[in-house]
């Protein structure tokens, strides 16, 4: 079946440290993998995506790694800030445009 799962429901980090959020997926019929950030009372906000034929992509303070062999995706946030506190979702996009979301990891940043 289709599923994208996250390893930890909550991640607590110290401000300034790096954060790593992990995700496992099972569906191979996807062209992109995407990370979203959802703050309280808001909709998911696009952070970064990676095409299925890539294994690494970097953005501003964020890096996404894709390991297709073990169907694993991770989001690394450098120098985590209080404003990074949110729920993070991984999602895979199918060719139909449909997004299959993981369960979500809550990132808590301690000052």
């Amino acid at each position, binding site marked *: 079946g289709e599923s994208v799962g996250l390893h930890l429901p909550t991640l607590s980090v110290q401000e300034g440290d790096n954060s790593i959020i992990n995700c496992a997926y099972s569906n191979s019929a996807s*062209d*992109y993998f*995407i990370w979203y950030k*959802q703050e309280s*009372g*808001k*909709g*998911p*906000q*696009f952070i970064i*995506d990676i095409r299925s034929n890539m294994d690494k992509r970097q953005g501003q303070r964020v890096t996404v790694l894709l390991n297709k062999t073990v169907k694993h995706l991770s989001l690394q946030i450098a120098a985590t800030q209080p404003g990074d506190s949110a*729920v993070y*979702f991984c*999602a895979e*996009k199918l*060719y*139909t*445009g*449909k*997004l*299959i*979301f993981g*369960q*979500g990891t809550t990132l808590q940043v301690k000052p």
Partner: protein
Amino acid sequence: DTAVSQTPKYLVTQMGNDKSIKCEQNLGHDTMYWYKQDSKKFLKIMFSYNNKELIINETVPNRFSPKSPDKAHLNLHINSLELGDSAVYFCASSQDLGSPVGYTFGSGTRLTVV
């Protein structure tokens, strides 16, 4: 200027009622979607329309009926509301069915059925 706007933001209604949620996007996108987020924050697609044509229709009760009068609007009508329909409903749009860049979500409509 809100890119994807939904109304209302909050909706409290009694079981058995019929209600609608409206969505509009001003991004010029061709594709629009409805997602449902449950109390555990799990997000699942319900429908998608591409240029007013239904593309995705997940296993959703037929009490839910989407309507797209034009490619900038995708409304969701729900008949005979049930307690289990309580959730946050998100509208989204994307340029097309291809790149995820620009896949934009609205701020959600929290539906509470009492």
